[in-house]
């Protein structure tokens, strides 16, 4: 489902069709093709440009860095994508990542770390902590989904509220015990190794373990989206909620589950992020939802609802990280980076909407 197949056969038959068009139609078909893929064209030009200016950009270590960053940001994007397929959004994502990262970090500090939040806490098994943060993510998702489905509130409003609530919760959580609002660090090696330990080496450059976790999650999400009745229901609700209801889809359950699944994905992101950056504060996860939503839109998960592919999300996250790293290579200032991000989202949405507008 959600695969953007064009009617008829593959590239060849489309080319054959193209050859039969009149001059004007040909020109329109070409300009349509350029417009519809403008985002990819712009990014491709950017990559070539950056690679010429700074050849190290395409070095092995740089590419593995980009892949790792992509893996770190992929789960949150996979979560947000579900909400977007329902023609909604979820702006609480980044804050949930922050909360779950802080919780995971606080429960997995070294026993002899002087500023340990819970001084008497032994080293917990990783799985216990993981399950705990997944539960936290699921509960926040449940709250989001419940208010969206039950009271028909726009997801933007609901998740704006939970975003604030979760941020408050993070700040309060960081005041617990000995921590006094400080950054959480001094993590137990079992945790940091589990997350950033070396998976394997490529030409001497280490690939961190979380790349594998991210890949596994991608496969699971692909399965859920494409191979389960829940996935089919999700696309149906996103495409036409009224028709889904008449057709016997449990709309309430579907919406709640989509948001819960999203919450779980944020929690996974938080768990990985906690071990990856190894020092968590209230600012961890800040604005992650913006990047995640941008990646989804670039990857063709449309705000129109009912369309999107997992492969598109992966591509979107990858391209976005590629651009960010590339701009870093060009020593573009962090301030400028925000402006560029904004422009990318705007352009991607405009191009996407163009495909769905009725031609008049």
């Amino acid at each position: 489902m959600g695969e953007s197949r064009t009617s008829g056969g593959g590239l060849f038959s489309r080319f054959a069709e193209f050859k039969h068009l009149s001059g004007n139609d040909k020109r329109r078909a070409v300009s349509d093709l350029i417009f519809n893929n403008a985002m990819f064209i712009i990014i491709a030009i950017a990559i070539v440009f950056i690679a010429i200016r700074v050849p190290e950009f395409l070095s092995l270590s740089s590419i593995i860095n980009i892949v790792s960053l992509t893996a770190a940001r992929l789960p949150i994007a996979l979560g947000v994508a579900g909400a977007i397929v329902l023609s909604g959004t979820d702006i609480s994502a980044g804050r949930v990542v922050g909360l779950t990262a802080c919780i995971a970090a606080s429960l997995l500090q070294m026993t002899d770390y002087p500023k340990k939040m819970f001084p008497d806490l032994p080293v917990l098994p990783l799985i216990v902590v993981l399950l705990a943060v997944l539960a936290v993510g699921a509960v926040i998702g449940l709250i989001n989904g419940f208010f969206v489905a039950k009271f028909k509130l726009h997801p933007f409003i609901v998740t704006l509220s939970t975003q604030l609530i979760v941020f408050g919760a993070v700040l309060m959580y960081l005041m617990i015990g000995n921590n006094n609002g400080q950054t959480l660090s001094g993590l137990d090696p079992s945790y940091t190794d589990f997350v950033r330990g070396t998976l394997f080496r490529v030409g001497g450059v280490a690939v961190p373990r979380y790349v594998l976790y991210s890949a596994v999650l991608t496969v699971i999400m692909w399965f859920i989206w494409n191979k389960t009745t829940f996935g089919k229901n999700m696309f149906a609700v996103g495409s036409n909620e009224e028709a889904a209801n008449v057709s016997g889809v449990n709309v309430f359950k579907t919406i709640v589950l989509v948001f819960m699944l999203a919450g779980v994905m944020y929690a996974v992101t938080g768990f990985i992020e906690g071990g990856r950056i190894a020092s968590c504060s209230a600012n961890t996860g800040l604005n992650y939802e913006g990047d995640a939503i941008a990646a989804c839109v670039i990857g063709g998960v449309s705000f129109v609802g009912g369309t999107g592919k997992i492969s598109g999300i992966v591509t979107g996250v990858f391209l976005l990280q590629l651009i960010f790293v590339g701009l870093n290579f060009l020593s573009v200032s962090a301030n400028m980076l925000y402006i560029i991000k904004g422009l990318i989202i705007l352009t991607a949405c405009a191009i996407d909407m163009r495909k769905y507008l009725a031609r008049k």
Partner: protein
Amino acid sequence: MVDIVKAFPGVKALDRVSLNVDGGTVHALMGENGAGKSTLMKCLFGVYKKDGGSIFLNGREVAFKNSKDALENGVAMVHQELNQALKLSVMDNMWLGRFPKVAKFIPFTSERKMYRQTKQIFDELGLKIDPNLKMSRLSVSQRQMVEIAKAVSYNSKVIVFDEPTSSLNDREAETLFRIIEMLKAKGCGIIYISHKMEEILRISDFVTVMRDGMHVATRPAGELTMDEIIKLMVGRELTQRYPPKADSAGETLLSVSGLSSVYNQLQDVSFDIKRGEVVGVAGLDGSGRTELLENLFGLSLRKSGSIILNGKMIRNRNPREAIKNGFALLTEERRATGIFGILNIRENTVISSLKRHSLAGVFRKNQARKSTDDCIKSLRVKTPTQETKIRTLSGGNQQKVILGRWLLTEPEVLLLDEPTRGIDVGAKYEIYQLIINLAKSGKAVVMVSSEMPELLGVCNRILVMSGGRLAGEVNADSTTQEEIMTLATKYV
């Protein structure tokens, strides 16, 4: 309006229709649903571009680009469904888009001027409404009066009323008639569209009847009786052919009694239906036909009533429960509540029977592919592949896909709301054949339609709804369109 022609793909909606309205008279425009009344009006107001014919106002040919253009030239319409900014005040609504300014070149609106002018028009019409009130605090009839006042404020010479009394009670209707008399005295020409015979005969001077996009007759109202109007409205040959009817009614399958809704007008409807029967539901727009089906299917909140299927009491509190009980509902608004436009045919076909096409929550694509193939073949859906997006299909083929969706749930009772709306003649026949075959295979079909010949041609019995109530039941083989029309206007 002279010789107006309007064609839509496959249908000639208006075929050289002429309408002549004199100043100072009320001209009633009548006809069944789909006779072309609103299309004619839409051509007048520039909503549709007419394909032929001309419109003259005061002897000058006009062609309005949109309703605003028409309004500024003295042609106004009071719509059946009021389009007003409810959160703004009464006078804001009156002057929307042309707020009076404090003075020329000073871009501030003058509330004082607005109030004074509004008050003046209201006094003229004898309306007791405070121009400062918020629109949402007014009753429907008062809102309608404001709309009329607005038309007057534009110095309209021609005012069209589209079923103005459909949401008014008797006393409110009297006020409306009084105002219409007043407008008439001022020399306005009034076009009055309504289904209600009594009020037509009471207030109008001339009656024009339309049928199938054609002008049938224009007569002085004084020469007409109710029966004559009905005869003019429906008196046509059955132009379409219908397949032989189902004739194998078995035991009673569904028995409904005292069905009423909480939030709509459906009131105390009772009927039975046997296996192998096609029961039609006739009635004017807004008579509660759709509401009846939606209530049965659990889409609207039920106040009271019982549903007995196969001798067993069922509740159908929501669509899922209804589907489990063997019900299927083909909705009237195919685009809004039927198809998933951006999904493909297979996804559209199996959405209601995902359980059958999955194992422990895992979707079985091959099985779905096979079911969809069966549907495409047996219903003769014209499509290149299963992966084609449904929105690219024609209306008839979309309808077949949705029917296929429901057949996969193996329903016993099919509720079909306008199953042939927006479908060309050839596909209509196929849908009729399908409906009759379903009945012959022992299912019960309830079919709502605005097209009477279709009901007469396909159904065994016809229930006639009027004003949310069941006005009567007729045998489709022995009844006449006149009888149905009389019943349909019983409670309006």
